[in-house]
C-alpha cells in the first residue's frame, strides 16, 4: 500500500481524459480541413492578394504577373466606378426582403409536407424541382425550346409564356389597392415591403426548394414522444407548434438563414458584376475587390442575424 502511494502519480488527471477524447476530434476533422485549406482558404487568400494588385496575363511565359498597387482598386471601386455602390445596396436590400419570406414560406410548406398523405414523395419532389431545373444544361435547353417556339422571333408573348406569369393585366388593380391601403393609413414602409414581397412570390417559391428539404429533415428528427406528451397533456395544435415544433427546429432556422443568405448572395447582381469585370473586362484586381467588399458586407449581416437568433435558440441535450 505504502509503495503504491509513493509511486509518482501519472500526470494525467480526470479532466485530461476528456481532453484526450477531444484531441481525437482533430483526427476526424483532419481530412476535411486538409482539403479546405488547400482548395478554399488558398483561393480566398489569393483573392485578397489580387485585390491589392494589378494582374496581367503573360501569355509568353504561360502565367500571370502581379504588381502591388495598394488600395488603388478599392478607391476606384468606391469613388470612380459607376454602378458598384448602387448594385451592392440593391443586392443587400433584396436579400433583407427575401430572407424572412423564404424562411417562413419554407417552414410552412415543410410542415404541410411533413404530414402523412398519399403521394407525399411526389409532392416533396415537386417543391424541390426548381433546384433541379436550375442546372446550366436545362436552362440552355429551355432557352432553345423557347426560341424554337416563337420561330426565331423574340416576342414578349413567348417570354411571358416561358415565365408562366404575367403582371401587366393586374397592374391596374394593384395600383388601386395600394392607393386604398395608403389612404387607410398603413405605414408606407410596411406597404413597400408587402408590395415588394408580393412582387417576388414567384422568386421566393423558386428559391425555397433546399430550405424546405432541410426543414423536412429537421421536422423528422423531432422525437415523436414529445408530440405524444403534448397530446396527452392536452395541448392544442397552436400550443404544440410554439412549444414543441418551433423550439426544436430553431437551430435549423439558423441553418436555413445561413443557406438562404449565401444562396441569394451568390446569385446576386454583385457577383454577376464581379464575374463580368473579371471575364468581360479582364480586370481581375477590381473584380476581386467587388467580391471581397460584398462578401464582407454579407458576412456582417450574417453574423448580426445569427448572433441575435443563436441567443434565443434552444438546444435539446
Amino acid at each position: 500500500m505504502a509503495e503504491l502511494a509513493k509511486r509518482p502519480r501519472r500526470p494525467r488527471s480526470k479532466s485530461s481524459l476528456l481532453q484526450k477524447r477531444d484531441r481525437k476530434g482533430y483526427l476526424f476533422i483532419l481530412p476535411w480541413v486538409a482539403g479546405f485549406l488547400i482548395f478554399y482558404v488558398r483561393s480566398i487568400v489569393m483573392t485578397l492578394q489580387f485585390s491589392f494588385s494589378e494582374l496581367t496575363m503573360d501569355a509568353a511565359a504561360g502565367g500571370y504577373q502581379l504588381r502591388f498597387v495598394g488600395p488603388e482598386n478599392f478607391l476606384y471601386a468606391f469613388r470612380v466606378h459607376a454602378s458598384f455602390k448602387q448594385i451592392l445596396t440593391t443586392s443587400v436590400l433584396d436579400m433583407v426582403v427575401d430572407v424572412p419570406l423564404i424562411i417562413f414560406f419554407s417552414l410552412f410548406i415543410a410542415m404541410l409536407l411533413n404530414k402523412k398523405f398519399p403521394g407525399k414523395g411526389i409532392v416533396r419532389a415537386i417543391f424541390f424541382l426548381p433546384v433541379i431545373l436550375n442546372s446550366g444544361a436545362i436552362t440552355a435547353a429551355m432557352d432553345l425550346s423557347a426560341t424554337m417556339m416563337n420561330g426565331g422571333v423574340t416576342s414578349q408573348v413567348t417570354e411571358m409564356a416561358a415565365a408562366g406569369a404575367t403582371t401587366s393585366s393586374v397592374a391596374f388593380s394593384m395600383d388601386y389597392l395600394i392607393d386604398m391601403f395608403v389612404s387607410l393609413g398603413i405605414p408606407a414602409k410596411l406597404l413597400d415591403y408587402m408590395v415588394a414581397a408580393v412582387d417576388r412570390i414567384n422568386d421566393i417559391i423558386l428559391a425555397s426548394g433546399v430550405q424546405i428539404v432541410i426543414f423536412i429533415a429537421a421536422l423528422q428528427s423531432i422525437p415523436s414522444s414529445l408530440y405524444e406528451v403534448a397530446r396527452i397533456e392536452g395541448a392544442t395544435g397552436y400550443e404544440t407548434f410554439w412549444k414543441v415544433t418551433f423550439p426544436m427546429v430553431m437551430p435549423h432556422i439558423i441553418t436555413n438563414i445561413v443557406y438562404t443568405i449565401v444562396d441569394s448572395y451568390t446569385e446576386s447582381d454583385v457577383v454577376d458584376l464581379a464575374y463580368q469585370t473579371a471575364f468581360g473586362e479582364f480586370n481581375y484586381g477590381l473584380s476581386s475587390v467587388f467580391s471581397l467588399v460584398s462578401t464582407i458586407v454579407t458576412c456582417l449581416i450574417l453574423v448580426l442575424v445569427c448572433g441575435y437568433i443563436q441567443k434565443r435558440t434552444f438546444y435539446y441535450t
Partner: protein
Amino acid sequence: MAKTMTAKTRMRFFKRREKQLNRSVAGNTLLFALMAVCGVFMVLPLVMIVNNAMKPLDELYQFPPKIFVRNPTLENFSDLFTLMNDSWVPFSRYILNTIIITGGGMLGHVIVASMAAYPLAKNKFPGKQLLFSMVVLSMMFSWTVTQIPQYLIISYLHINNTYAALILPAWSFGMGLYLMKQFMEQLPDSLMESARLDGANEWKIFWSIVMPNVKSAWLTLAIFQFQQMWGNTGSLFLRDEQLKPLQYALQQITAGGVARAGAAAAVTFIIAAVPITFFLICQSNVLETMTTSGMKE
C-alpha cells in the same frame, strides 16, 4: 373480416378526432389549396419538359406553343441515340465518367463533412470557433468569382485534367459540414456517453451511433451534393474528351441548335429525370430517426 373492418373504422375515427384537435377541416383545405397553387407553378416547367420530349418536330415549332403534346412520339429519343452512337468517344464512357465524378464527389463529401462535423458539434477544443467561422466565410466565396484562384490551385497540384480536379474540391465544401453540424448538435450527449461506457471507440460511436441517428440529414446532404455534381460539366478542368461527364456530352447536343431541337428536348428530359429519381429514392428513406428512442430520462 368483420373484426378488421371495425378495427379500421375505429382507427379512422381516432385519426379524424386527432386532426380536429389540431386544425379545422376548412383550414386544412385552405392550406392544401395554397400548397397546390404553389405546386402547380413549380411543376409547370417539368410538365413542359416531359411533353416537349415527346413532341414531334412540327409540334415543337408550333406557335403559339402548346403545353400538352397531341401526337406523342419517341422519335426524339431515337434521334438522341443515333447522335450518341455517332460520337467519337463511346457514349458509355461519358456515363462511366459521370458515375465516377458524381458518386465520388457525393459519397466523399457526405463522409468527410460528417466526420468533421461530429467533433465540431460534440467536442470542445481550441480553434473550434475559428474553424467554424472560416467554414461560413468560405461558403460566401461563390464558385464564379474564385474561378481563377481555383484553377491556379488545381494546376499547382498537378491534378488538372483528372477526375480528382472535380472530386477533391467537392469533398471540402462548406455547406455539408454546416448542415451536419447543426443536426448533430441536437443529438443528446447521453446517447454517446452510454456508447462510450459500453466500450465503443470514437469511430464506432460516429459510424454506428451518430450517423444512423442523423440519417435524414445526410440523405438530404446527398441530394444536394448529387445535384451539384450532376450539373457539373467539368469544362474548366477536364480537357480530354475521354474524361468528360455525361452532362457535357448532352450539353453539346443541345448546343447543336435548331437542327437538333428534338434530341435536345429528349436531353432535357434525361438531365431532369435522373436527379428527380435520386431525390425520390432519398426522400422515401427520410423517416423519423427517433433520436431519443433508446433513452429513458
